[in-house]
């Protein structure tokens, strides 16, 4: 019996099963008469995707604190269809500026509920500290291909907090062109929100009343919002993708902040006019404060452009947004992120954001009692002229079982100025715009199966 080529049955056990695949690969090359084949690239599409994050947002000086827990569960089906359900629970506490100006004397105010009064020491910014709320938000989205190159998504949203109810519907369609290098998209969202202020919505420009007097309250209000967005994203090269979006937003209805007031001031000194009647036993405002009044329509246009540039795995993401509206607020946002891989599955991502906006045409620090009342007025600092900077760092890593985790820490600082022409008498020497500093910490965890 010839020995050459005869295979004898060996009883010796394979030392290590890793050698099975190596031997098999070599034998296959010999059989097929080819070199080594390109390595397999196969991936099972996950069926479930869970994305959970915890966010803490805290303003300094005991202003707003928000703890938010958000979960998005996505179920993937065959043929690229998916259903995504999101749940967010927020707990808000803290104090917000009431809109009244600082005074050299202590001030008292009636709480928004009308049930009690609170006082603010001399020289301090009036803050309403009854701000406390829990918000629950739900979203649901269905996404599916439409034809070979289209992707259609429809969804609904709802959120409820103590004094606010939001319900909305949305739809988006994206279409690929040019070998999928170009994507055009169009989206529409409609919302109906109901504002249910504590104690009822006050009539604009009526005074803050004494404790127990709710005669200027009007119950619940609502507003409708329509958003339309058109976008184009373009693959410029293997490493560069750009996107441009135009969006239009129209709000119609009750757009006031029902808790914000303006101080009615002396036309010469700029100090808040004192109340004209004796303070009742249950308390009330020490001066004259009028509830704000905004237009009942707002139309915004915004243009957003973004470039993502991949430099050997490091990704630079730069975006700019210009927004303008018929309240005459113009804003510019510049956002820069840089994702820097620092090992298998982990990365650092520094983030810088600059924001600047001009004040609304009806923004007023206070109301001059020597002049007729304007048609609209608000001293909400968010409608004022301000700049903001966000600076932060995110660290992301993969866990041992392949899930993604990330921790983001950011600082936000906002500082504004009241136009000099609005300052009357003593107001010129005071710090009128409530600057803001906040810390943002977010932890995210994502896993698929």
């Amino acid at each position, binding site marked *: 019996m010839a020995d050459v*080529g005869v295979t004898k049955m060996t009883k010796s056990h394979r030392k290590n099963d890793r050698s099975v695949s190596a031997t098999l690969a070599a034998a296959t090359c010999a059989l*097929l008469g080819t070199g080594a*084949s390109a390595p*397999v690239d*196969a*991936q099972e599409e996950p069926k479930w995707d869970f994305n959970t994050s915890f966010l803490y947002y805290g303003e300094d000086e005991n202003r707003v604190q928000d703890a938010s827990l958000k979960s998005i569960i996505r179920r993937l089906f065959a043929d690229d269809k998916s259903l995504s359900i999101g749940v967010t629970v927020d707990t808000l506490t803290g104090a917000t500026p009431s809109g009244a100006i600082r005074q050299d004397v202590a001030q008292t105010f009636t709480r928004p509920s009308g049930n009690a009064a609170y006082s603010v020491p001399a020289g301090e910014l009036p803050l309403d500290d009854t701000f406390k709320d829990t918000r629950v938000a739900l979203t649901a989205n269905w996404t599916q291909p439409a034809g070979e190159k289209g992707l259609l998504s429809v969804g609904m949203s709802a959120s409820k907090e103590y004094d606010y109810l939001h319900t909305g519907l949305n739809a988006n369609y994206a279409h690929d062109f040019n070998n999928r290098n170009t994507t055009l998209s169009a989206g529409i969202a409609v919302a109906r929100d109901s504002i249910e202020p504590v104690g009822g919505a006050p009539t604009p420009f009526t005074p803050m009343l004494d404790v127990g007097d709710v005669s200027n309250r009007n119950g619940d209000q609502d507003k409708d919002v329509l958003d339309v967005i058109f976008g184009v994203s373009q693959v410029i090269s293997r490493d560069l993708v750009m996107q441009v979006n135009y969006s239009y937003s129209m709000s119609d209805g009750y757009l006031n902040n029902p808790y914000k007031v303006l101080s009615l001031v002396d036309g010469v000194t700029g100090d808040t006019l004192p109340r004209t009647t004796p303070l009742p036993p249950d308390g009330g405002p020490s001066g004259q404060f009028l509830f704000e009044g905004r237009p009942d329509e707002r139309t915004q246009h915004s243009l957003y452009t973004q470039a993502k540039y991949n430099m050997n795995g490091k990704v630079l993401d730069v975006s700019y947004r210009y927004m303008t509206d018929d309240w005459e607020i113009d804003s510019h946002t510049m956002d820069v992120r840089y994702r820097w891989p620092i090992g298998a599955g982990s990365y650092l991502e520094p983030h810088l954001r600059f924001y600047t906006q001009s004040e609304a045409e009806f923004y007023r620090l206070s109301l001059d009692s020597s002049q007729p009342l304007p048609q609209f007025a608000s001293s909400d600092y968010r409608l004022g002229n301000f700049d903001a900077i966000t600076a932060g760092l995110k660290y992301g890593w993969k866990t041992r079982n392949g899930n993604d985790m990330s921790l983001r820490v950011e600082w936000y600082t906002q500082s504004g100025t009241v136009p000099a022409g609005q300052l009357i008498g003593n107001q010129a020497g005071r710090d009128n715009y409530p600057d803001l500093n906040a810390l943002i910490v977010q932890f995210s965890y994502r896993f698929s199966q």
Partner: protein
Amino acid sequence: MSGPAGRECQIVATEHGWAGRFRAMGSPCEVLLESGTRNQAASITSAVAAEAWRIEDKFSRYLKGNIVDQINTANGASVKVDDETANLLDFAATLYKLSDGRFDITSGVLREVWTFDGGDHIPDPSSVEAVLSRVGWSRVQWARPVLTLEPGMEIDFGGIGKEYAVDLCVAHIRDSQSGPGLVNFGGDLAISGPPMRRRAWKVAVEGTLPDAADHLIDLRQGALATSGDARRFLCRDGVRYSHILDPGTGWPVPDAPASVTVAADTCTQAGMTSTLAMLEGLGAEKFLAQQDMLHWCRR
């Protein structure tokens, strides 16, 4: 297209391009192409089909006069084989060694006593023993290019042929420069490269539980092959006999999975890995885990 009875190709337009269909090796076969005209798709499909039919004609154990028939009817005489057959025999010899004798191309004769039709006919042990005396690659004399079988022994490339054909056909599509394509012979499949207009080829693999939904696989490179068949088994006295026979005992491998699907660089590697896993019986999952390959094992 025309040819011997049943040897026809059909071209249909699909959502992502063209599908060319024909039958070979007892299975429905499919060529999926992303680009080109109907005529180009037809010409690639006919070339792929011609290659599949060539391999079928050359290596089918059911056809008279081919090399396998010459070997199986040599009655103890030596047969000198061509290079391609020699390559397959070398490959079979390696697999035999790699599997400690559990992968054996001489075990086909066991089908004379085992018929896996979902019924309950279990052969009596003495007849299994009788057939087993004609099984064993260790008793074969293989000195390339000469093969000598003992009288009564047979070889069968059925466990290799389909995967081998898929790999050769994919190589043909790659060489034709006609754009990426997928070759699927009865569930054993390979791709020539990632698709151009989509992220990946999408392949559905049966769920691992009886009523589980299919797993959807994104394939950008490589191949998938499945061993085992949920419909090919025997059942008697509550015992389910898989159609994977152990050439050492002549009896079905106990506790073999219902089927195993493996993703690998080539269809041949995927098919052999899934077959070796089936032969491990209860140890299939452990074996697969050690191979560090994407796999699905159904019990």
